[in-house]
């Protein structure tokens, strides 16, 4: 069951679901703020509303009388971002260009593996190569990049699956989960690094090292404990990923059916 919101466009009532309504409202607000110095603002907004209403009406029939996010995304894409001054320079125009709502989605077509990097790159307006390098760099930290990648792979919908659905609402959740994961991973990695250094590595580089001698004797023992702890941490990390991904999926599905 979904709640609908009745919107009057151009003196006619239209039924919008909540997602579609929030997209339309965001679009119109951006248009309004972009036109705030334009003397024809109210007229242009009325015209745009008129066009949106016409295009919405074209997609409705007796069997379907509610406009969903997919419909409104298509309509707003057709209408295009409201350009305050169509004859101005590109730079100014670019400021209003992002009027079509952005979504955090995987893009398997544009990606090398599952399109996670390419989806992130588009969402944050970065070059995809930069995102990939960040992931590779994070991979150096005991595979942290891989962990985050797997989580995002599970949590991010594909562009088609999202089909204009709910992704805008859920992305803070995904990001929050990723943040939790980073903290967990850091907690797992830091002890491994420090214990690894004063355990194994230092001992083996000590001149004439004899693990059984003096102060370092205990350390090697601790080194092997640290190694075991490392394996243990990786197992914990695996569990955290599985639980985290399941939680995100559960919350996503709940957000959809609400």
């Amino acid at each position, binding site marked *: 069951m979904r709640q609908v919101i009745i919107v009057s466009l*151009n*003196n*006619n009532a239209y039924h919008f679901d909540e997602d579609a309504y929030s997209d339309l409202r965001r679009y119109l607000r951006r*248009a309004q703020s972009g*036109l705030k110095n*334009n*003397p*024809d603002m109210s*007229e*242009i907004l009325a*015209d*745009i509303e*008129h*066009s949106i*209403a*016409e295009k919405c*009406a074209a997609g409705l029939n007796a069997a379907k009388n509610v406009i969903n996010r997919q419909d409104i995304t298509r309509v707003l894409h*057709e*209408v*295009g*971002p*409201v*350009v*305050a*001054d*169509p*004859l101005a320079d*590109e730079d100014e125009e670019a400021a209003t260009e992002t*009027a079509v709502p952005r979504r955090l989605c995987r893009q398997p077509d544009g990606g090398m593996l599952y399109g996670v990097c390419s989806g992130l790159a588009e969402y944050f307006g970065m070059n995809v190569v930069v995102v990939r390098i960040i992931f590779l760099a994070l991979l150096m930290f005991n595979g942290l990049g891989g962990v985050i990648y797997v989580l995002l792979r599970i949590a991010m919908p594909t562009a088609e699956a999202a089909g204009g659905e709910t992704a805008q609402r859920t992305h803070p959740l995904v990001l929050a989960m990723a943040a939790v994961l980073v903290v967990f991973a850091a907690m797992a990695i830091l002890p491994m690094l420090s214990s690894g250094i004063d355990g194994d590595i230092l001992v083996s580089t000590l001149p004439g090292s004899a693990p059984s001698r003096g102060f370092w004797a205990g350390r090697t023992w601790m080194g092997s404990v640290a190694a075991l702890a490392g394996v243990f941490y990786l197992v914990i990390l695996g569990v955290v990923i599985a639980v985290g991904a399941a939680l995100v999926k559960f919350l996503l599905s709940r957000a959809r059916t609400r």
Partner: protein
Amino acid sequence: MGGIDGKLGPIRKGLLEFLILKIVSTNTVYVADILKRLSETEFATQEGTLYPLLSKMRRENLVDYEWKESEVGPPRKYYTLTAKGKSQLAELNQYWKQINSTVNQLGS
């Protein structure tokens, strides 16, 4: 592609108003008609661009509109050229011919 488009974009932008004057001059048109005629050309554009431009042209008294009933749905705005719009179109046409011949004269 980005480099050449950076040079072509401003040219298209500069000609858009001229082309709209031309389209409106041939008939009494509705915005969807203008978009449709432009959609088949390099000058394809969208409502988000066209409405602000038409409003500006109306403010400059180049075009005017009247509400007309449509067969389906609510009434629509139909645009026509004003006298000032017609004379500006004639001037632009003249200037365009001049530019064209200059471009042609200066080599291939």
